[in-house]
């Protein structure tokens, strides 16, 4: 099994006609994801040509896309930051239950409203500023490269994009395939937390171990560690990026900043270790620790 999305998930792509949107939609389709429609305001009525001669209709609005294609389970958003929060709200308002927002650079006050609407409408948001997720062999929603994953027993959760790929790459090479790899995003306000993912992995019988890839800033890793300590019955491994980051400086991700004494790598590492989660010192070590815990 997998969490959040699989081969039956019917996906709409918002911003399908843009440079990134069209590139990654083709990659998603090539991976086998059920993309049923695209949305770009002003481009309704066209068709989007995917790989292998498959084409999907493009609509002006998500509501039309949902109505005309017999429903959608998820939307993936590749629209510019000025319009991305609005795109999330549009999808949530149209009744889409799961929204993956890849866009980076969305104003945080926009996101306070978008997250509120998503909660009001019962919509799960993954991201923003996230690489999305991939359920190996089933579907990918977002931009995680399909060639670095394999089906298997490991659930992976990360605040980062490329660091996720790095970790997955090692897991796959070491024969440790994945149920689902989830990039939760590097923004301070994200829709799906480590804990949300842990709960989902805990309920998935196929996931036998979890890797948690965190970074400096905020307290999401500490909360995850505490939750895992109390509820998680499968082994988990942690990693924290940003040990060398100076306090008060934003390290790229809007969420990756040490404020005062809070949100340091030390604090997070301690939280993991206090809750029985070994912490890798190098990205390559993550896979090694997971393998040990799984008795491989």
């Amino acid at each position, binding site marked *: 099994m997998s969490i959040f999305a699989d081969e039956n998930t019917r996906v709409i792509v918002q911003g399908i006609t843009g440079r990134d949107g069209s590139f990654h939609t083709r990659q998603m389709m090539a991976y086998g994801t059920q993309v049923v429609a695209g949305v770009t305001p002003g481009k309704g009525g066209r068709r989007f040509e995917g790989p292998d001669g498959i084409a999907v209709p493009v609509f002006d609005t998500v509501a039309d896309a949902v109505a005309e294609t017999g429903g959608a389970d998820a939307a993936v958003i590749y629209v510019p930051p000025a319009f991305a929060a609005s795109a999330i709200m549009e999808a949530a308002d149209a009744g889409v239950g799961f929204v993956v927002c890849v866009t*980076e650079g969305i104003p*945080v006050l926009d996101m306070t409203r978008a997250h509120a609407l998503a909660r009001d409408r019962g919509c799960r948001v993954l991201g923003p500023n996230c690489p999305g997720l991939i359920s190996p062999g089933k579907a990918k929603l977002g931009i995680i490269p399909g060639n670095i994953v394999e089906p298997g027993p490991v659930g992976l959760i990360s605040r980062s994009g490329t*660091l996720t790929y*790095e970790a997955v*790459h090692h897991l796959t090479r070491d024969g440790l395939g994945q149920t689902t790899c989830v990039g939760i995003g590097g923004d*301070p306000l994200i829709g799906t937390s480590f804990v949300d993912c842990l709960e989902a992995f805990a309920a998935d019988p196929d996931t036998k171990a979890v890797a948690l890839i965190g970074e400096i800033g905020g307290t999401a890793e500490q909360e995850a560690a505490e939750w895992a300590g109390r509820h998680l019955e499968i082994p988990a491994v942690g990693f924290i*990026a940003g040990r060398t980051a100076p306090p008060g400086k934003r*390290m*790229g991700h809007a969420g990756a900043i040490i404020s005062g004494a809070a949100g340091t790598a030390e604090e997070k590492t301690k939280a993991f270790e206090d809750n029985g989660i070994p912490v890798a010192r190098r990205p390559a070590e993550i896979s090694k620790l997971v393998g040990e815990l799984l008795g491989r």
Partner: protein
Amino acid sequence: MNLHEYQAKELFRQAGMPVNPGEVASSPDEVRALAEKYGGTVVVKAQVHSGGRGKAGGVKLADGPDEAAEHAETILGMEISGLVVEELLVSPAEKIATEAYVGVLVDREGQCPVFMVSAEGGVDIEEVAATNPDAVHKLRVDPRYGLMPHQAYWMATRLYDEPALVRQCAKVLSGLYDAFTRNGASMAEVNPLISTEDGQVKAIDAKVSIDGNELFRRPTVEALRDTASEEQGAARAREAGLSFVKLDGSVGCCVNGAGLAMATMDLVKYYGGEPANFLDIGGSSNPDKVVAALEIITADPNVKVILFNIFGGITRCDDVARGIVEAAGRIDIRVPLVIRLTGTNEELAREILADAGFEAVASMDEVVQAAVRVAA
């Protein structure tokens, strides 16, 4: 983006908040003239993006124009947290009865703006929160409703007993929330918010940080940027759409993705090196960004090697490879490059690099160890 006190105060005034008067000066003569104009005791305050200006000697009371000019002489050019003071804010001194703290920022957990207010103002609020948490009152603002009048009023009653002061304070808080949201701030605070001996509530200090993601749609706020006070490379990185933080080491890092960039820095340290910078070339990259990244990194004389660590996802490896080749042609890269590329369009990237005489490795540990070796 941090604003100077005088800029923040102007935003507060625009939001209808009561703020003490004041003007900016950049020479002792100008300060003398302002002190003459205001008469009586004046306050001279260094305008730098740093807390602890008072402790550093950047804030002085002056009993007349001569003393004001003397203080200006001392403070101008002073270095506070590595920043040189080039401007001073001169204000008439206030007759302070009480000092409170009011601030609003974005709460990660609640995913909403959160106010922090305390009747204990004029001091470090984090210290108050740590030593006397009951003295700090928190109030979350539901973004669907904004700050509701009863919430502003409730906070005001935590700071004042006298109904007239409570009413004024509630207005200040509504104004602060307006200033916060209307300018796309990530933090706005007044410390201290004073009440005067004649019963006026007003802001005599102001601190505002703007969410960088808001600036594209707020040109008047963007215009407040003080590029002179930015660190080396920051302006160039911003223009090129790169995330860059200068550090003190010798291994220049050019990575795609903030997490991987941090992990790369950490790995440099792990293998005994010191990173010269954090640099994320971002998601959807184009060759120009790579060129800019190389220019920024090579401008740092400490850099002895440049480490590329690229894992292709939304970034395509071939774009980065083209950028490296183009940059090598355009600028004089006087230090060695060590390159790691893997992921989307990896094969194509290797070909492009090979054609230009560069080699790339596939492992992160490998490339970092190589870089540390070169820099040693």
